[in-house]
């Protein structure tokens, strides 16, 4: 049964390599985008931490900034 599923009457190499390539592309793209996202988020947190209290409260009053700060591990 397993051998039959793997060999697929001689087409196994073509079928499995197509699916493997697709999943590899999915994983690579997800990892790259995730790294970019984490990098930007960390940069934001560091920058926000260096602001004085007046600038920080002004920045915090802006909608998106509030969201970024409240969602530190949203993906």
């Amino acid at each position, binding site marked *: 049964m397993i051998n039959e599923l793997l060999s697929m009457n001689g*087409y196994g190499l073509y079928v499995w390599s197509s699916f493997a390539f697709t999943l590899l*592309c999915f994983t690579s793209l*997800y990892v790259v985008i995730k790294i970019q*996202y984490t990098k930007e988020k960390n940069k934001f947190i560091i920058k926000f931490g260096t602001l004085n209290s007046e600038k920080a409260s002004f920045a915090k009053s802006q*909608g998106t900034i509030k969201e970024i700060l409240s969602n530190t591990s949203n993906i």
Partner: protein
Amino acid sequence: MYKFFEPNKIFSITSRAPKYILILFVIVLTIGLIESLILSPEDYKQGHSVRIMYVHVPAAWTTLGIFSTITLLSIFGYIFKLKNFFLISKSLAPSGFIFNLIALVTGSIWGKPTWGTWWAWDARITSMLILALFYLIYLLAWRIYENKEQVYKITSIITIFGIINVPIIKYSVDWWNTLHQPASINILSKSSIHSSMLFPLIIMTAAFALFSLLIFLMKYNTELIKIKNKGLDRL
């Protein structure tokens, strides 16, 4: 209505959605893989090699859909000066390019047992390769140009030229004698594909669409944080 597309309003949704979409994508993809690799029947002519269709066709459909969406958003963005439309287009492009690559590579792998060759300069295959080049130029334009107005203009021009290629891809199998088979699925008339093959194809297409939505949201959130980072620098 345009206020709905403001990043501040959208971010509250886009920042929370990815984790739910990721879970849904994994579930749909698992069902799709079981259906397409185990439960669906083999083709009477092509044998098991027909299973490549379950990754090749959804990838091709999704990449064409994404490019058409990018073009529409770029045109509307340019006409109505909606910068957020450009941001959405930019965030859609990476998954569109990857799906194009998947369609080309899996098509090439499928070509070997079916036509006896990995590659042919056939109308459908060549036009898909041209679309990949348009995606590449579009993505490079965002990296090369720093002036926002310039990049909006250039990316809009790229998509307008690129969209000419989309109907060519669609009708290439009807207009020219190609190695590539004609469409088996037609929305307006009866499809020539059996329901036992159509079901896994629909499931896999849903999985591909969910993945592109996931990547789009993650990329879009990254772009918004990038903008906010620049904003913090100016404070």
